[in-house]
């Protein structure tokens, strides 16, 4: 948790420097909107940004249906890739009504990337995605240890009896 909060702070720092360097802002952004967002990012909006990062792209889609008032139109910015002691960080920030409504990581820190790789190695699967077999197709049966009594009615006992 502490690491996640620290990362959120760095994400925002990356975005701030990115806003100056990359200037890859999209859509209808005004200078006043951009500057108000920058001032807003120094305070509590940082923590609201970190919660926004986990909520997908909903901020962006609501922005596309933005109101007729130009100052509340959502805009997204890609930050610059920033080297931090946690690894490389790049974020995308959505600003609406002068407030950061969403922060999305475009580039993960090395630590985050490693955990993403690990979870992709042991992923949720449907039963139909596991290699299937009938008892007749296997030579042995693995399972949590059964007692001698439970063995008598087990699939392994049936295989052993067939091969006796």
């Amino acid at each position: 948790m502490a690491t996640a909060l620290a990362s959120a702070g760095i994400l925002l720092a990356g975005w701030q420097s990115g806003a100056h360097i990359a200037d890859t802002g999209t859509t209808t952004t005004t200078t006043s909107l951009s500057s108000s967002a920058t001032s807003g990012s120094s305070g509590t909006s940082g923590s609201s940004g970190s919660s926004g990062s986990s909520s997908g792209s909903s901020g962006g889609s609501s922005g596309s249906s933005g109101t007729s008032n130009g100052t509340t139109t959502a805009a997204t910015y890609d930050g610059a890739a920033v080297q931090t002691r946690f690894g490389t960080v790049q974020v995308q920030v959505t600003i609406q009504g002068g407030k950061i409504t969403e922060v999305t990581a475009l580039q993960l820190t090395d630590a985050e990337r490693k955990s993403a790789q690990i979870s992709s190695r042991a992923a949720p699967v449907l039963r139909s995605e596991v290699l299937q077999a009938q008892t007749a197709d296997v030579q042995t049966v693995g399972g949590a240890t059964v007692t001698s009594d439970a063995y008598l009615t087990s699939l392994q006992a049936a295989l052993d009896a067939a091969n006796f």
Partner: protein
Amino acid sequence: MPPTSDSTRLRARTFRSMGTVVSLTVASGHYAQTAVDELESATAVVEDKFAELDLTFSLYRDGSEASRLARGELTLAYASESMQDLYVEAAEWRLATEGAFTAERPDGTLDLSGIVKAHAAREAALSLEALGLRDWCLNAGGDVLVSGSPRPGTEQPWIAGIVDPQDRQSLLGAYPMATNRALATSGSAERGHHIWGVGGVRPEFDQVSVSAGDIITADVLATAIVAGGTRTLDQAVGKWNVEVLAVRRDGTLLATPGFRKAA
């Protein structure tokens, strides 16, 4: 099970040990009587090995060395070499799994029963190799260690079914034991015997199967993942060359690629 080919067939023998049943299956193309003699003498050797280790390590025998240690009548410094060696091995696994696997009960009693069955299978494998047997499958109460092929002379792997913890009469899936010769499975129902959830938390997984190159690694990590949950699962697949199939309490599955169907 029908013969695997015209000239080869599988023959199995079983015996009781360590509170469960051990099965030895041998693939052989020999003349029937030769093959049966070979299997029966091999089974006797394996059974002796299990019996010897059970005498030393079982806590349900009052006179065993393990029971004397547990009662404090004997200290580890004066224990047999095999007891000391296995305790050291268990302690190393406790460190490597950050405590998810442990050979101590919550009350501090030394209990190696989580590793003894795998240790016996490992020792039995050495005996079978010494006898010159190449194609066999040893199943010790659901933990599997294989050598060679069910069709000697071919590359065809032994295939282990994995029991469905919610319906023990059906298989959840299968695992071809090619590069990994060992497959161990632990269930949270065994918890009363040797799996304790870290911090006393109810385990996330009903059943965890781990395949590895050796039976100790497979057995220890299956036990550790039941106790330590997803965190230990992620750590295990990152640190060891293992494949994992885990069944969550709601029946859904987590699997590494080795347990998935070929795309």
